[in-house]
């Protein structure tokens, strides 16, 4: 799975979660906006975390060197 595919998965999860929040607890436009903001923030945070770790391993400058004992 490449970078884009996983990013799309994150986007999809975000969209699904927003839709769920919209359908399950629809409490007026301003509360819905709050829920949407929270979901977007959470999704962006999680995606950033994943993306950083993924990108860092894309073209490794150092590789795992096993310890002597193993």
């Amino acid at each position, binding site marked *: 799975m490449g970078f884009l595919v996983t990013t799309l998965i994150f986007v999809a999860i975000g969209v699904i979660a927003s839709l769920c929040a919209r359908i399950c607890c629809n409490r007026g436009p*301003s509360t819905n906006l709050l829920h949407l903001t929270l979901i977007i923030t959470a999704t962006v945070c999680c995606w*950033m*975390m994943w993306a950083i770790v993924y990108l860092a391993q894309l073209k490794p400058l150092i590789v795992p060197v096993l310890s002597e004992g193993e």
Partner: protein
Amino acid sequence: MAEQTGGGGCCPPMDLFRSESMQLVQIIIPNESAHRTIDYLGEIGLIQFKDLNAEKSPFQRTYATQIKRCGEMARKLRLFKEQMSKAGLLSSSMSSTQVDLSFDDLEVKLGDLESELIEMNANGDKLQRSYNELMEYRLVLQKSGEFFHKAQSSAEAQHREQASHQTGEQSLETPLLSDQDAVTDPSKQVKLGFITGLVPREKSMAFERILFRATRGNVFLRQTVVEELVIDPVSGDKAEKNVFAVFFSGERAKSKILKICEAFGANRYSVPEDLGKQAQAITEVSGRISELKMTIDAGLLHRGNLLQSIGEQYDRWNILVRKEKSIYHTLNMLSIDVTKKCLVAEGWSPVFATKQIQDALQRATHDSNSEVGAIFRVLRTREMPPTYFRTNKFTNSFQEIVDAYGVAKYQEANPGVYTIVTFPFLFAVMFGDWGHGICLLLATMYFILKEKKLSSQKLGDIMEMTFGGRYVIFMMSLFSIYTGLIYNEFFSVPFELFGQSAYGCRDPSCRDSTSAGLIKVRDTYPFGVDPAWHGTRSELPYLNSLKMKMSILLGVAQMNLGIILSFFNALFFRNGVNIWCQFVPQMIFLNALFGYLSVLIIVKWCTGSKADLYHVMIYMFLSPTDELGENQLFAGQKITQLVLLLSALVAVPWMLFPKPFLLKAQHERHQGQSYTALQEAEESLMVENNDDSGHHEEFEFSEIFVHQLIHTIEFVLGAVSNTASYLRLWALSLAHSELSSVFYEKVLILAWGFNNVIILIVGIIVFIFATVGVLLVMETLSAFLHALRLHWVEFQNKFYEGDGYKFSPFSFTLIDGEDE
């Protein structure tokens, strides 16, 4: 109100993002319905009354007497509570079937009950006292009877002995009483008086000594220890006592002894000399004791019934009295109209509550059969309204995190919205381990599931705090499970959950895996850190580089969010100066330096370049025109860097100079207006007040300039130091993973290696305690504090003023919750 301007026209206003819009309202209430009106308003709990009599002392106010009455009633209730707890009764919240009492009726009733209870207590005390006295009397009778009996029998024995032997030898034991003469010839007997009684045991030695000295030894004292505890009639306490009998001769000695008895708190009881009479007295006293006992029991039963009936009503009365007190307290804050026919109330209320308040006013007018209704109107004011967020049990604890730093200024952007996600997220970056996350989740699920039960009972200090923050901890645990999956750590053990590791041996023999290392043979591990890194020699350098860069990226992102929020603030308050002279240069400055660094980090990762980023950043300042050489990451980098450096340099004076001058020009414009049209000036000043609170009538240019200077320096230096501050994410997450791997390897694996069940069990126990104590409790706390700091300082100083004051409405629900 006029300042109802939405944050961007496209979307509805977001909950929690801005505090509720408030209005200053004035309510004119006719005297006759005032009490009921305040009662109804207290039930709604959405008005914060202003004290209109601030200059008056509490005693000068209109309803001072009522408040005093409430205080008196509260005192009576406290007395009942005390009596109930003494009697071991609990105030049971039985179904209140009784009709509601009015305030006056309750006062009468409480007065009656109090006097009844006090009388009962007094009677009970009196009875108890005489009962205790009788008990002591009986003891004295019994014990001194023993003295007399013993003395007499030994005297008789001696007499017989003497009669048989007729030797003059006198035993030391010979009691004084049974002096031979006295027995043989009563007519010659020197009249010996005696006093009997009880003396506290700890004083008995001193008592004896003083008696002996005072009478120069012309006294004979006998004491016996009473084994069981005796209840002292005067104090009502249980005490250890001795029964004593003093024999003396002469009136002077008697008066001395009486005084000494008094001084030592020795209770005297007269005992008949004659043995027969003594026995009679004992039976008489016993009879009276049993009689008294019955009376006392009946009294106690009656009292218990009374307290029981009070206990059933206690809670209701207590709430009623507290309610009344708060109502009168509020009434005291209202000013009286000149005609003395109505009261004028002023207070803040949220705009959305207008309808509710008007309904309540109408109901109050109707219910109190008042002819005139209360008048409700909205006042215009320049004052800063209080800040009121409608939170629920989930958002409340996050809002409290923000409020602990400072209450938001009226309607400024609330960092609490983002804190709900970013706070647990940053916590989790430092606490990434999905095993620990699950433990935390289980613990907090206990709190959440038992929420109803736990919220009603009293908890300890620390438990209370944990319980209050249960939803914060819940979110923290969810995010730490996620980051734990990213870090691929389960109690520091990696799992191949998302496919195979990307790394493999160079050749089948794996000869150089310990020297040259593995090579990447597959696609990058799709989710999180590759499990192959765990336990390798290059794990630490790799993770350090990764986590350090991640901290900077996350930090720059969060700081950008903070600056963007300052843009929304400026937009909301229609403050163009802040957008152009603060938001824009700040964005440019931060992103020209640290945004660029972030871009470099990502470019380096994507291209796999070996460029030295430190070198690039340092020489971007030191010699921007030099060739980059092997450190070049992309084409045109030199030009880009020059442009960025120049824009960052331009941004600093841009932040510093224009704003004070623009403010000055703005102020002069307002001044000019105020001379021409007073009405308008007032309105524009109102807007002004909303724009910038630190900006009053008198305009001190130097003050504004210095303020701006400080702000600029703070931002420029802060951009560097705050970015560095985010490195704590790296440090703490490193500490956490290292600690957990130490506990795992040095305790659990070591214990496993011994192949001994006992050592294994001990190892497991030590591991569990270390994990819970150090990792789950202490590490949670430290990561929490660091996340708190990152939010309060690094995030909020970009936009948050936090100089508002909290809306504290007059509400009965708040009063009920209060503890006495």
